[in-house]
């Protein structure tokens, strides 16, 4: 087990290098960002050349990458075009986004798995059908619209919440945005749990447990659910990164200055330093999340062992 973890941690190094190089090249391929800095006019060539020098864009791309990586190893992630250090941007964006992601994941786990268990045990009943309809609504109506309507209803018409999240983004203000963010993933979690549960319902260990006379509740939570969670856990693991880096719409609607927004801005402004910096951290999050998921497999299914 310990060796397995060490091996996995070592594997992070090539992934880290590969991902940063890939992202670096992708932003580079997007072209020269300087033209976008001068508004609706042509940058004067001398200033443009100076700006390229300032951001290191006049170097060949391999040297840019090496310089960048060298700086990253010393903790310097460069500066955004507005002169703000990227570490400062990350310092404000990541804590907010991590909180938002946690809220979303907790909601996914609590609501998604509950609904999944309920519908899985009552397949074809009205409750199953209602949840299916809800799923369809969530998938076919864009988050933008759901978010907007919830914001109008709760924030303006009823006045239950503040429509926008303040700069400090306390946990309480993130519950509604978290729900909006989690909505599509909730659909996945619910249906995955439901299907998996329905499959395992008839396995021998459940039958044995029932035959032993265990209470239904214990059978469901201890035996049935535990063995049905592997696909769900896998999904949530893959979802962490998507929630952290892809919350662009939710973050915009609720005015959250998080990772999704900064990354989006960085990409549109073609700012290599911001984009690579943020993605680098996200890659690390992925790696850790996936490692945790793999370790969870062994917890959920004792037959799975890691050498």
């Amino acid at each position, binding site marked *: 087990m310990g060796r397995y973890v060490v*091996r996995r941690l070592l*594997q992070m190094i090539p*992934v880290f290098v*590969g*991902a940063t190089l890939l*992202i670096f090249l*992708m*932003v580079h*391929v*997007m072209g020269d960002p300087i033209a976008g800095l001068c508004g609706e006019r042509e940058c004067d060539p001398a200033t443009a050349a100076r700006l390229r020098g300032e951001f290191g864009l006049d170097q060949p791309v391999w040297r840019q990458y090496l310089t960048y990586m060298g700086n990253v190893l010393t903790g310097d992630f460069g500066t955004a075009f507005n002169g703000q250090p990227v570490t400062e941007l990350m310092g404000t964006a990541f804590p907010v986004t991590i909180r938002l992601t946690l809220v979303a994941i907790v909601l996914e786990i609590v609501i998604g798995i509950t609904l999944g268990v309920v519908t899985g045990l009552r397949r074809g009943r009205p409750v199953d059908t209602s949840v*299916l309809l809800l*799923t*369809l*609504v969530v*998938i*076919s*109506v*864009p988050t*933008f*619209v759901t978010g*907007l309507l919830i914001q*109008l209803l709760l924030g303006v018409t009823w006045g239950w919440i503040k429509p926008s999240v303040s700069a400090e983004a306390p946990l309480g203000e993130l519950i509604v945005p978290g729900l909006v963010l989690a909505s*599509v993933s909730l*659909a*996945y979690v619910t*249906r*995955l749990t439901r*299907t*998996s549960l329905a*499959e395992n319902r*008839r*396995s*021998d260990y459940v*039958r044995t447990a029932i035959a032993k006379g265990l209470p239904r509740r214990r059978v469901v939570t201890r035996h049935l659910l535990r063995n049905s969670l*592997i*696909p769900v*856990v*896998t*999904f949530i693991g*893959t979802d962490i*990164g*998507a929630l952290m880096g*892809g919350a*662009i719409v939710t973050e915009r609607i609720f005015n959250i200055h998080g990772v999704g927004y900064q*990354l*989006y801005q960085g*990409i*549109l402004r073609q700012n290599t330093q911001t*984009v690579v910096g943020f*993605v680098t951290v*996200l*890659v690390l999050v*992925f*790696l850790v999340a*996936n490692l945790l*998921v793999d370790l969870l*497999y062994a917890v959920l*299914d004792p*037959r*799975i062992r890691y050498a």
Partner: protein
Amino acid sequence: MPEQPYEPERAMAGTGMGGQMDLAASEATSLEKTPAGPEGTGPEGTGAEDKARSLWSDAWRDLRRNPVFLVSSLVICFLVVISLWPSLIASGNPLACDLAKAQEGSQPGHPFGFNGQGCDVYTRTVHGARTSVTVGVCATLGVALLGSVLGGLAGFFGGAWDGFLSRITDVFFAIPVVLGGLVLLSVVTGNSLWPVVGFMVLLGWPQISRIARGAVITAKHNDYVLAARALGASPSRLLLRHIAPNAVAPVIVVATIALGTYIALEATLSYLGVGLKPPSVSWGIDISAASPYVRNAPHALLWPSGALAVTVLAFIMLGDAVRDALDPKLR
């Protein structure tokens, strides 16, 4: 043993190596939803009858009797027909727009009203089916195939192969959709939907891959798989015959839901300026154009969204039916 003509699971049940099948099968008759057919009577049939029956043909027999499957197939057939010949039910021109009618509601000849540009919502919804259904189905198929093959192999073989594939998925996960779209799709000239589909497959497969990997890791520890392995079944046979049918459920669930998100993603790409451009017509484009105006003209959002919902519903139902049919325990 490799030539074994009938399902190993059943053979095992017969030989008492995997007791669970026995129990599951005997319970099948009392199940609420699987129609009891002649093949549902039990796995201990004689070899002569079983020769013609594989898991897949069993599944097909089940499916044909399943009303859920029939209804969803009908809906899908309908979608295919209007995708091929939209003019059958909507003779208007989806590109004819009159700004003077912008956001107007339902009126004679225009049952769904008009959108923000004054185009007929009904005509556009019908004509948008071709693009949206093609993008959704092809992207989903591509993602599901690529993802489950790579993920399945990673989960089955484990070790270095798994490490390698999993780390590649990690790198792919890290690519933000916006960045990928702006980089990979902005080089595409022309207005074909295949680059869009290709892009979705490229960025979408890691998710299915991880789901499939997880499912295969669980499935390969099942008793019947261990048994089949002990009996000398080849890896390909193990994977295809024993593991795949038992690992396919989560893949189907994720794929059918993802189908809807791909149809919506097509609009996101268009919104970024790298997806399909006018004069293409699609549900995604119309949904995203109508979204900001939901307070004033909800109907312009409702109909294309509704069409998307029906499509996703049909595929979710189809996926459910297929999964049930593949599950021997429900038989």
